[in-house]
């Protein structure tokens, strides 16, 4: 019950290998793609270098951050069922500081390096002559961007650390009596609600506007932040599923049963539908009102009836992978309790939402010259390796079951 994860050799090899692949792609990218090249969009490879880094650092950061969001919502809802695999979610969220640092480096290089091919609002002369952009300049300027990004990532890392600390403290203290347990749960609720407030003000609204939507600064959508959140939350739950199934197959996490997997599967199913709901709401309103400044976003992606855009395939592939597959495959109860199919669906959903982020970032940056080659695949592999390393490290340092958690029994006897 009090066992730590002994990282198997294969796991170490894979995580190190993937990180080396990522680092090599970055290194080769620095020499081949000219990251310091023209920032006016005439050097496609230079733009591509930064756009891919932006897409991946933001995607994987938001993905690991939803681990803490998952803990906080279940804490606030007084949920007990997740306690059996709570340490896995904690392990995923323990990557927020390092992922946040990587993201900060990338976005600050972009902003301070004056990459106007990524963020057009960095061009001061252009902003002064553009009425819409000068109206938004109080929000979209390098100072605000930098301060908000640092503050956001700092708060995620700080509150997440606090939540993990409170969980780890219980391991030393021994079983809690009623009053101590009550006080401990209340302390968790307080910090958890602080995290939810910060999460709502960042991922729920401003952060996607700053980091992603400002790639097309003229265009705006009120659905955008929720869309980004749904995208990362469903892939975050898929990541939890992948690690839970991996550990179950290694014979760990003895309290996690098919019932827990079933509930995680319900999360994957429900948030895939939620994502589609937001995707459709954003698409339909813009399609219906048919105003040029709004439709430009979709014309860049699908193209017009005369001329198909270069992202048309990806755009519809995105919808099939993230909506049609989950609704048809995950609908049945037996599928949500099947390790093989759940692994398949989790990988598919993470890949699908990675593609989703690709089509959110690329059309506004590299425009008509999208590439999907060694660099686009090498960088995410590095991030996957990093996640594997971080999760393995956390689980090998701390017991895999929070044995003194007041709700542990509720999780053991959980029945859907």
């Amino acid at each position, binding site marked *: 019950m009090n066992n730590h994860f002994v990282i198997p050799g294969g796991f170490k090899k894979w995580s190190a290998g993937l990180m080396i692949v990522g680092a090599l792609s970055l290194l080769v990218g620095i020499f081949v793609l000219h990251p310091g090249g023209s920032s006016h969009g005439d050097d496609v490879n230079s733009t591509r270098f930064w756009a891919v880094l932006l897409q991946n650092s933001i995607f994987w950061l938001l993905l690991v951050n939803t681990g803490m969001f998952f803990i906080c919502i279940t804490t606030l809802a007084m949920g007990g069922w997740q306690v059996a695999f709570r340490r896995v979610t904690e392990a995923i969220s323990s990557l927020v500081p390092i992922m946040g640092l990587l993201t900060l480096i990338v976005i600050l290089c972009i902003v301070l390096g004056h990459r106007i091919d990524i963020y057009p609002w960095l061009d001061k002369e252009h902003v002064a002559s553009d009425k819409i952009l000068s109206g938004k300049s109080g929000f979209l300027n390098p100072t605000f961007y930098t301060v908000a990004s640092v503050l956001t990532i700092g708060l995620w890392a700080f509150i997440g650390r606090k939540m993990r600390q409170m969980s780890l403290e219980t391991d030393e203290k021994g079983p809690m009596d009623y009053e101590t347990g009550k006080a401990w749960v209340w302390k968790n609720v307080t910090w958890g609600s602080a995290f939810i407030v910060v999460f709502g003000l960042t991922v729920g609204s401003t952060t996607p506007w700053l980091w992603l939507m400002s790639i097309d600064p003229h265009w705006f959508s009120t659905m955008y932040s929720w869309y980004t959140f749904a995208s990362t939350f469903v892939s975050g739950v898929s990541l939890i599923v992948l690690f839970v199934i991996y550990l179950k197959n290694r014979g760990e996490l003895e309290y996690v049963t098919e019932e827990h997997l079933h509930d995680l599967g319900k999360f994957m199913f429900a948030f895939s539908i939620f994502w589609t709901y937001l995707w*459709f709401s954003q*698409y*339909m309103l813009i*399609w*219906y009102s*048919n105003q040029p400044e709004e439709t430009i976003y979709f014309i860049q992606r699908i193209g017009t009836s005369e001329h198909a855009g270069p992202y048309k395939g990806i755009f519809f592939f995105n919808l099939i992978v993230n909506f049609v597959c989950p609704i048809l495959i995950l*609908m049945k*109860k037996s599928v949500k309790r099947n390790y093989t199919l759940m692994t398949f669906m989790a990988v598919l959903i993470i890949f699908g939402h990675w593609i989703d982020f690709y089509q959110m970032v690329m059309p506004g940056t590299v425009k008509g010259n999208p590439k999907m080659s060694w660099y686009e695949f090498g960088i995410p592999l590095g991030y996957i390796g990093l996640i594997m390393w971080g999760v393995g490290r956390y689980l090998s340092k701390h017991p895999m079951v929070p044995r003194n958690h007041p709700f542990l029994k509720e999780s053991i006897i959980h*029945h859907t």
Partner: protein
Amino acid sequence: MSVKKFVVGCFDDEKVLFPAIKNVRRAGYKIHDVYTPFPVHGLDHAIGIRETSLHTAGFIFGITGTATALGCMGWIFTSDWPLNIGGKPHFPLPAFIPITFETTVLFASVGMVMTFCYLCQMMPGVKKHHFHPRATDDLFVMVIECTEKTNETEVTSFLQTNGAIEVNVQEAEAGWWFGRYDKQQKLYRHEEVGY
């Protein structure tokens, strides 16, 4: 519609009820149903009720709703009465999706409620025999259906040794009927128990 003989055993504790159910099933008696004052987790599993097919019905109702909405709107706007609305195509799929979605939900929910009522044999006006009034208060009531080969005294003592605090034998209608309780005396014999 058939009047059958039942042995009714009352338990006042879940912890006694579950082993009793196990023993009764192992002894080969047929459990008609178990009535509880509140939902008991794992009870449906213990008495061996098969998985419900309500979700399959829901899926079929939903698909029917989708087909109805899309078919209806498609037919109206392309062949029956084509209108030019805001320069959109005659079959504007995105504009039809919300209505299709709502119709799907409507068909699925209404259809499932009706199917659920049918499967549980409850409807306005439908009556069923109540085996024990305290099944809605504080007793877990296990009802065993008798065949012509069943020895009631044997079942009664079997239930008593398994912890039932009260056991009686009733002859009552197994299914449901329309009507009023006070006018349907012929459907059950022991008037002092049940309604």
